[in-house]
């Protein structure tokens, strides 16, 4: 319509885009809606669109002491695994980005290839190891496993961030007499903080949503929210409104994280192949 200098709005593309976007978001919106219904309203046909919202489901979930424990497990596992993978991954990514050798490329590809090892191929040994070490149903086991399985992704993402930083700054600092540790802490860290932050964010998202190990290695005490939600799949448990409320609480923090940080996440998700 308005013949803008740079771009003019395209109504056909806009309509298609909005229809698709709303369709994609619909299941989430429908779930949020259901979480404010009573159990009877939630299964009513034809489905209710206009109703008196109730907070009873949320109250019920918070009243169950269990829920907070699941949530705490999710937080502890995601944050623990992510912080550990950053502590281990940052030096490696730094070294490969700033001091590449002829082995760097191979090393990076090898790290990525460990990610291609199917989790299920090693399910049995990991299960038995955890059993023998007394780590079944423990947060420690999930933190270690999540850390290891996200480490390659973290290193890649950090590497793509570090690679784009000005390299001369290190040499300049070195000439000024700073040692490697001083360079790392005082010169580089402030520069790389955004990259580390987005890597951490992606790590938390991946851990938070991780289901395979959570479902197979936990029972009660260490189960995160993914496992808690899965317990609603039992056929007799037709508590849709409550399930919806629990789901909303389980995904809301990560969804908001994702919305805020989508721009930073992209560069990591593409493994540096798209600028």
């Amino acid at each position, binding site marked *: 319509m308005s013949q803008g200098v740079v771009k003019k709005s395209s109504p056909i593309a806009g309509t298609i885009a909005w229809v698709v976007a709303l369709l994609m978001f619909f299941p989430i919106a429908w779930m949020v809606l259901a979480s404010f219904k009573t159990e009877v309203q939630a299964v009513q046909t034809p489905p209710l669109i206009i109703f008196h919202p109730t907070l009873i489901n949320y109250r019920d979930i918070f009243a169950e002491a269990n829920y907070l424990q699941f949530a705490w497990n999710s937080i502890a596992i995601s944050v623990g695994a992510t912080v550990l993978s950053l502590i281990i991954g940052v030096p490696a990514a730094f070294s490969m980005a700033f001091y590449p050798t002829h082995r760097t490329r191979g090393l990076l590809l090898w790290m990525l290839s460990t990610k291609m090892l199917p989790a*299920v191929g090693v399910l049995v040994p990991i299960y038995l190891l955890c059993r023998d070490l007394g780590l079944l149903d423990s947060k420690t086991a999930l933190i270690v496993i999540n850390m290891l399985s996200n480490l390659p992704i973290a290193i890649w993402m950090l590497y793509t961030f570090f690679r784009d930083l000005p390299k001369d700054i290190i040499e300049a600092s070195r000439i000024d007499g700073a040692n490697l540790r001083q360079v790392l802490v005082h010169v580089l860290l402030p520069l790389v903080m955004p990259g580390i932050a987005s890597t951490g964010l992606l790590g938390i998202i991946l851990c938070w949503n991780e289901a395979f190990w959570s479902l197979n290695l936990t029972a009660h005490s260490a189960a995160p929210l993914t496992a808690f939600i899965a317990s609603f*799949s039992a056929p007799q448990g037709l508590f849709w409104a409550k399930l919806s409320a629990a789901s909303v609480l389980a*995904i809301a923090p990560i969804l908001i994280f994702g919305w805020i940080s989508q721009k930073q996440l992209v560069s990591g998700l593409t493994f540096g192949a798209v600028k």
Partner: protein
Amino acid sequence: MSATTVSGGGAPAAPGPRQKKKKGPGGGVNTLPLLAPSVILLLIWMIVPLAMTLFFAFRRYNLLNPMIHGWAGINNFKFLFRDPALLHSLVVSVVIVVGVIVITVCLGAILAAVFNQPFRGQGIARVLMISPFFVMPTVSALVWKNLLLDPVNGLFAAMFRMVGLQPIAWFSVFPLGSVMTILCWEWLPYAFLILFTALQSMDEEQLEAARLDGATPFDIFFNIQLPHMARAISVTIMIEMIFLLGVFAEIYVTTGGGPGYATTNLTFLIYQRALLAFNVGGASAAGVIAIILANIVSAFLTRSVAKRLEV
């Protein structure tokens, strides 16, 4: 810009030496202490479980019956290959991986081109569009299974009844299709986001020039935008493949692998053998098969896709 663009002038004789190499190996800095923790941990993470899986695959070992022990030779593999469920689960795995990748990449590319047009509220529409990617798999699976696809109280059933049709029990009639629908819903946002980002980096003037020359939107999409997205498409395929080979939660929550073996992929088959039947030997043998397959796929990927990564 990328490795494929050869700058004019004297072509270097050496095959593609990277610029960074000029610093020399390590630039005189001892990088071993920085690299060692990651490398050692990943080596352990890779080798120990792998060796154990291989070992157990040749053992007679059932968690419920300690009387069964000793070497099994290749019996675990014999049983496995005689089991029709194995071949079937391989087919299911391939159908899931290929089907979801084809659908999400095709739709993702088209949607990326659509969203690349300027329109009102583009930022919000994009945020809505990518939201499913952040939803945990157990939640997506349950929302689809109950709120949407349930044959009695689900929304689809209600809509079918409204227009006078018989509601369909989606997970019984189209079990694999239903599971794949959920997976596509989860992964389309990822494909879209990556491909959209790739398109955004494109030179706007090039598109304008093409339009002035009378190119239709189809010409532009197939001849300009699609080639530009090639690298992003490779990455999308690689990442989706890594995650889709291990699909578990969506099946666990919705169909439990059934009806029959209709939605049992290799991951779920091993889970059933290992943790439900407590057959460590058999599950490990299947695990070995899974690892070999993944290695074939990853070797192929590393050759074709990883080359495009800018390392």
